[in-house]
């Protein structure tokens, strides 16, 4: 059975939230709110987390990994370079000075951390993303969009729930 997209636009976070809550309770067949529903909003709205249920975020592991790898790598690079370039003696300082190398190491600790954070964002958020169907610029402007993907059969029921919660507009994928 083919699946189709439906986008409902709301004016209010509360209304959208209630609609989602009801949708989650309704448990339509072939419609999993965790995977088949996407909320789009112009601002981040933490209340949605309550209605959407637990959605773990894994971005933070990227900087941890990046920072550790980055600083280790740089420490070895710098120490190795110093050991390799040992004709460059410095009076009063050892050839491989640890406190000094830590300063530079610290810089790369953060640089690679930042790189990996952004990498983590892109990986976890799925950026760069292709446009999903039924995109409207209004969800970045001043409306809240709830995009669902469901069997054709269930769509009217879903739509009914949206209408009940004062969805101001619907957009539907054209039928196959």
């Amino acid at each position, binding site marked *: 059975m083919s699946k189709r997209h439906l986008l409902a636009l709301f004016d*209010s*976070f*509360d*209304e959208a939230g209630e609609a989602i809550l009801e949708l989650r309770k309704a448990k339509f067949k072939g419609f999993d709110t965790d995977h088949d529903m996407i909320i789009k909003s112009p601002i981040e709205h933490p209340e949605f987390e309550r209605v959407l249920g637990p959605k773990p975020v894994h971005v*933070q592991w990227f900087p941890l990994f990046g920072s550790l790898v980055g600083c280790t790598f740089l420490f070895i690079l710098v120490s190795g370079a110093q050991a390799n370039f040992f004709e460059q003696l410095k009076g009063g300082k050892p050839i491989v000075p640890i406190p000094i190398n830590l300063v530079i190491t610290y*810089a790369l600790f953060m640089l690679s951390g930042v790189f990996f954070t952004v990498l983590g964002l892109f990986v976890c958020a799925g*950026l760069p993303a292709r446009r999903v169907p039924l995109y409207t610029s209004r969800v970045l402007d001043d409306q809240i969009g709830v995009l669902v993907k469901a069997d054709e059969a269930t769509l009217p029921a879903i739509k009914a729930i949206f209408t009940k919660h004062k969805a101001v507009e619907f957009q539907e994928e054209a039928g196959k």
Partner: protein
Amino acid sequence: MTLKIKDDKPFLRDTSKMLWDGEPAHAEVKDMSPHISFAQITSDVVNSLENPRPIYWWAIAVCVFMIAVGVACEVYQYRTGLGVSNKSNTNVWGVYIASFVFWVGVSHAGTLLSALLHLTHSDWRKSVFRYAEAMTTFALMTAGLFVLVHLGRMWQVYYVMPYPNERGVWSNFQSPLVWDMFVIGTYLTCSSIFLYTGMIPDLAVFRDNIHDGWRKKLYTFLAMGWQGTDRHWRNFRVAYLTLSVYLIILAVSGHSVVSSDFAMSQQPGFHITSFPPYFVVGALYSGNAALITVFIVLRFMFRYEQYLNMDVLRKLVRLTFALAMIWTYLHLIEMATVWYGHDTAARDQLYFKATGAYAGWWWLFNFLAIVCPWVMAFRRWQTNLPVQMVLSLLLNVGMWLERWMIVAPTLGHSHYPWTFDFDQWPSFVQWGILFASFGWFALLILIFCKVFPAVSMYELKELNYARKVEAHHALVGEPATKGAH
């Protein structure tokens, strides 16, 4: 009644003619109205980019002229040698290094507003942090130029980079200048990334609102397909928060390393352990002063009266005053430790600053940087635009002088008495390049504000939503919850 993010009350843009909330036209906008709609914010920002006041183009012209002056000076200096900048073997550094530190300092305010205040959930930062963040990046770029200008052989600057080369030679990792290169490079890279990352949602709005031309392509590319889905926002929040943390560390370590350029040397007057905090706070202080200047300019130039409003200015000014006081304390502490310390060379040095060839400038800087900010303590002047404009410029001059007073008289009075007290007045080349740096910085800011959202739309919308919630709760008589954010 549910709270709608769209507001049906008409918002009249033209504040010069009309009122909102029933106040007279000449009144200043005190705070952002909760009645303003999200779409209004979008259209305001988009429109302001399209139609700045004509003075914008004049400003661009002035900037270009300033840059031309600096380029001419630099070409002359490049061809003839650094001698034309009128330094000497005693005063080997001069305006260039002072300006380098100054510009690195300016960059710190952006980080403070965007990263530190982000962590502390300070809502008022939301309208100013974007251009502040841009200032961070551009100030660092300007600072980098001073490094180049300062070098005796700038065409060999790549020797500083540690890269595997044919000669089998590496740069000296023990040198604070190499740390500088690492840390400032990291800071610049990371602040650019931070700026860009924070801009992604806004770029998506631009992508949707601008329909043709190269800018459409640019925004489409840069927005990376952002659609504001819950997954996007969720990860974005964590990533942005993480970046903020990194940026704060970077800002602190960055300027600490810059201070170590001085503090790591044996030069009395530089060789002070309190330099890192002193530099960091001084940077925040001078950066905030610069922020106020840019605030006033942008507010006028791009008609941002609604968003860069008096409430934000007041908070900025108060923050600046607080930082000025912390800085004053550290400044006095620094002098006091020198005073009570056993290092006679450093004491001698301090006396030289206060009484020697640079005494006039030293006292002027002390007046500008310590006494002048007290004007900011007075509520009636905190939102007085002309006063704040002049004041912020004076503070900037004062803080530039502070850097110059760290560099010039200190070098003129080191350990070795034979070379004491050379006072070398910088030549027009040094002044010209300093002059140009302001033009360069301003030009970058102006171009940025014309091309990218100078105020953050999504954060403004968040702020606006929070206000709406407050207003709503006030209306229905419920206590406002903290859940708005």
